[in-house]
């Protein structure tokens, strides 16, 4: 038996004989379960359950676990070993999952099975740590066995990593989404009916076109679609203008625009919506001013499409800017110089050379804006008024009085179809084009200056939109210090005290403020999710960039898929899937952590891919030819060289977890409340003061984190700057 098998055998054995088999109501780390362990059937390990003649259906697992012992004493390359491992691993996994799905809280889930076998009233809860460890053991038995058959050159580490990523992606992305699709096909009584699905899917409330012919509102699908197209187009335009001014204007102050790109990362999505209300709401500053000036009655015009549009443009223009700044810089200056030496004017060069070269980037920015707008939940919730969009409708279908899971699932599917089509279009249409604009060869020359008729309007737009953004962020800070917005503008610290009061008592620090609870929960959960996200993202990136294996394209698609799944859809899918055994997670902190990991994983993967493709592949190969195995190579060569990327992925997933709202709002519980859902709660109670004060505090915290990291990364240079590939040739 080699060391890998021995290790996983021990892990599996611990899972089977030591750890509580079922999920623990009070959590593992409360250690409540030590009382009564190991005999209490709620806390017992599987071995003790079976010994007490309970849950006897767990007994066959012991056989699968013991199978690898047969490999003891066999020579290393004996083909029998791989067979034993595959049977033990695959058999064990399948049996474990099958019994988990078959037997639930009410005994057998299927009436047929219940009629066949009498469980004597026994039932079971969700998997706990014991079950998790044993499944891990089975999974790695399987991958080790597959590797022993010579797959991916028989590399145990690589096959194991692939198996692990496939397992968790299937468990936490594919399973919930498919489960949601199937629940859309069911009536509320759990009967499958295609007719009901079609009725729900083609509901007038989704696809109605009443707004075109008569004075009714259109279906939510059309609302979302038209909003997303508008937002995509406008943010792309603004992003392009900003990118041109930042890189091509020759203005020395232009680099001041760059910090703009950090804004969307550190701003919780609905905060812009709040600021818009402070400016243009019924008692908003601008509304009041205009009303006084012209003697008009203030209106609620901003609630609905206009408000959401403005808020989303403010939120997502920096994203387009971020994408396009890279694209504009990527346009090779020598192409433009070539055009100019061929007697083209600046304007002709811009129209015929520069713009067409940016086309893939423009499409990319548009699709990003489109997807972000579709998925945005916070701004429509705050500013929507009577203008319903898909993401908010989904929310109200679940939490509202209707509690119609089928309807939520159907709406989620509509939303998913839109975003997946956009995602597919982006991949299909752009493919690898966006990477090839830069050749990596030294490319001298000066980028062409912009023609006057582009430059001047660009300056104006940037000035206007830039100052608007400043005003909006100013509002956010200022709003937190005002007694009651619109009525009493006295400066006060009241809101901050309510939220963040701290008192020194005899028992130490007493966190009295109402926000502390959710604040610490947020930090803890985001802090746990971030390293896991970064780790999974980087391992996946390593597999995608450095390894070749059958089904790699499907693998890549699966891991990037969650990027196209809006948070609200993930939220709905998670509560539908993880409310019942075998994975009972709702109401725990774990489900929040999981949702963050899988929501943000594509970002980690992208960051990993980007930085890994800059590492010369011969570094890995050199390590391999020097006798290091792939794991060793990954650990001592690749990871140290990726330190900046790791740090960036860590910070990004941390900050994203802190600002997320769309999936979170479905998954929070009284025990695990997050900052964002707390703030939304305050907004719904019209308690804007605290909401804004808390948002400001969050922004400051995240800005600090981001700035500190950038300083750290700046210092941690290692020897990377002069990579061996940069040698003169």
């Amino acid at each position: 038996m080699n060391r890998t098998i021995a290790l996983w055998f021990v892990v599996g054995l611990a899972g089977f004989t030591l750890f509580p088999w079922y999920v623990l109501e009070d959590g593992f780390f409360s250690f409540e379960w030590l009382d009564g362990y190991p005999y209490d059937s709620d806390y017992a390990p599987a071995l003790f359950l079976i010994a007490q003649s309970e849950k006897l259906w767990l007994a066959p697992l012991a056989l699968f676990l013991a199978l690898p012992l047969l490999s003891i004493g066999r020579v290393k390359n004996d083909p029998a070993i791989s067979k034993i491992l595959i049977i033990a691993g695959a058999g064990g996994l399948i049996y474990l999952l099958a019994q988990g799905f078959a037997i639930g809280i009410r005994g057998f889930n299927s009436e047929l099975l219940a009629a066949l076998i009498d469980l004597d009233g026994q039932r079971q809860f969700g998997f706990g740590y014991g079950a998790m460890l044993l499944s891990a053991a089975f999974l790695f038995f399987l991958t080790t066995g597959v590797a022993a058959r010579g797959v991916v050159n028989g590399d145990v580490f690589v096959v194991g990593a692939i198996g692990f990523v496939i397992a968790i992606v299937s468990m936490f992305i594919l399973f919930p989404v498919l489960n949601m699709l199937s629940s859309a096909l069911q009536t509320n009584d759990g009967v499958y009916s295609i007719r009901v699905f079609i009725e729900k899917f083609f509901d007038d409330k989704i696809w109605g076109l009443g707004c075109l012919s008569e004075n009714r509102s259109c279906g939510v699908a059309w609302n979302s679609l038209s909003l997303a197209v508008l937002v995509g187009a406008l943010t792309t335009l603004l992003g392009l203008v900003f990118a041109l001014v930042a890189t091509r204007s020759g203005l020395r102050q232009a680099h001041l625009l760059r910090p703009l790109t950090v804004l969307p990362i550190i701003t919780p999505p609905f905060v812009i919506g709040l600021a818009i209300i402070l400016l243009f709401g019924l008692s908003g500053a601008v509304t009041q001013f205009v009303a006084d000036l012209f003697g008009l009655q203030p209106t609620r015009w901003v609630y609905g499409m206009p408000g959401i549009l403005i808020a989303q443009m403010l939120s997502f223009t920096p994203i387009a800017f971020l994408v396009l700044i890279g694209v504009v810089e990527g346009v090779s200056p020598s192409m433009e110089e070539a055009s100019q030496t061929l007697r083209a004017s600046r304007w002709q060069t811009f129209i015929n050379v520069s713009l067409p070269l940016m086309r893939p980037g423009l499409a990319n920015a548009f699709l990003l804006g489109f997807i972000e707008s579709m998925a945005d939940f916070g701004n429509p919730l705050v500013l929507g008024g009577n203008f319903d969009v898909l993401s908010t409708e989904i929310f109200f279908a679940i939490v509202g009085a209707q509690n119609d899971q089928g309807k939520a699932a159907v709406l989620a599917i509509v939303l998913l179809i839109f975003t997946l089509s956009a995602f597919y279009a982006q991949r299909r249409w752009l493919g690898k084009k966006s990477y090839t604009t830069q050749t990596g060869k030294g490319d001298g020359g000066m980028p062409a200056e912009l023609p006057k008729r582009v430059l001047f309007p660009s300056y104006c737009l940037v000035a206007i939109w830039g100052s608007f953004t400043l005003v909006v962020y100013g509002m956010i800070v200022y709003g937190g210090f005002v007694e009651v917005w619109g009525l009493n503008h006295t400066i006060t610290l009241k809101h901050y005290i309510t939220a963040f009061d701290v008192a020194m008592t005899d028992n130490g620090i007493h966190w009295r403020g109402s926000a502390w609870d959710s604040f610490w929960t947020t930090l803890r959960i985001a802090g746990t999710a971030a390293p896991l996200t970064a780790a999974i993202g980087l391992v996946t990136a390593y597999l995608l960039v450095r390894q070749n294996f059958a089904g790699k394209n499907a693998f890549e698609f699966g891991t990037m898929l969650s990027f196209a799944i809006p948070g609200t859809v993930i939220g709905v899918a998670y509560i539908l899937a993880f409310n019942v055994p075998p994975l009972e997670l709702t109401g725990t902190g774990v489900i929040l952590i999981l949702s963050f990991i899988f929501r943000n994983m594509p970002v980690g993967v992208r960051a990993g891919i980007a930085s890994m493709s800059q590492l010369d592949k011969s570094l890995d190969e050199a390590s391999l030819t020097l006798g290091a195995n792939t794991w060793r190579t990954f650990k001592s060569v690749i990871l140290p060289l990726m330190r900046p990327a790791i740090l960036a992925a860590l910070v990004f997933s941390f900050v994203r977890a802190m600002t997320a709202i769309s999936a979170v709002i479905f998954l929070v519980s009284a025990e695990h409340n997050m900052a964002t859902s707390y703030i939304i709660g305050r907004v719904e109670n019209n308690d804007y003061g605290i909401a804004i004060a808390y948002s400001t505090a969050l922004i400051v915290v995240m800005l600090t984190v981001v700035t500190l990291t950038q300083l750290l990364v700046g210092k941690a240079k290692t020897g990377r700057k002069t990579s061996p590939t940069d040698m003169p040739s």
Partner: protein
Amino acid sequence: MNTSIKSKAASVRFDSVSKIYGGDVTAVDNVSIQVEAGELVTLLGPSGCGKTTTLRMIAGLEMASSGQIFIDNTDVTILPATERDVSMVFQSYALFPHMSVAENVAYGLKVSKVNKKDIKEKTETGLALVGLEGYGTRLPSELSGGQQQRVAVARALVLEPQVLLFDEPLSNLDAKLRRQVRDEIRELQTTLGLTVVYVTHDQEEALAVSDRIIVMRNAAIAQSGTPRELYEAPADEFVADFIGEANLMDVTITDIDVSNGFANVRLGTLSLTLDARGNNAGAAKLAVRPNRIQLVAPDTPNSLKAGVSKCTYVGNHMEYVVETEFGDWFATTDNVDTVFEAGKSVGVQFNERGPVLIPHP
């Protein structure tokens, strides 16, 4: 020289090895190679000929699609790189930028769990061997290109590999350094008695450094032999032209002298007696190196009438293009003092030795 780094030089054998990518791209087609222990063999060919793939298959970085690979008469066909006793010096050197020079050299020893004292000693010996004593604490980025190159060699050497591989090791160095490093590699190889397989596309480098050269073309072996064999007796037009330039001309063999295997060759007014190399009487191809063509005064006996169409002075020799009724020929001569100007008539002669008939295919 410290001898604590020994050679475990072993032979390498390819038995009908092929490498096919993605089902239809054949990178290496049914290649059989034998490299003896202690020999320096160069794989030479234009880019895309399969030489690097062949090298990587020896290292275990690519797996053969069919055929067998032996190192020291042990079948290693399915062994991955980690488990083969082979080291490689990469074109980009592939020094780990986050490790110091000494850490780079020690890396292979560390992962093979050699004890600390030996690691230290061997690292120092290895660096001394390439003339970099005292550079151990620097980062690779603080070294010049040539020094980085040597670190890469030291890193590969300290493992005392059965086979040492070089993938175009000189391509990132400037011309002057190339000759020096080339000689150093050859010297190390002969003193330590290493088995070396060396890939390059530079024919001059290959001629200078090798015991034997394997010329590859279109995924297959075009010719294999010592540098002199390849240069003086090319097996086909491709080899003749790839290794040193050659003027290829259509000639007529009037008759073959069966007693010594020599052919009488006619080319216009010229007549030559050359090794027949399997040709029969009739049409044949003749390869003549540029420096084996001599320009003489017009109407010299046994010379061909020609016109000078181009004349270039390049310092240590003259380059000419001469126009004859059999085509344009490229000729060089060390005589830079007598110049045949462009547009003038000239006589052309061939050296006694040098012109070679291409074997009949």
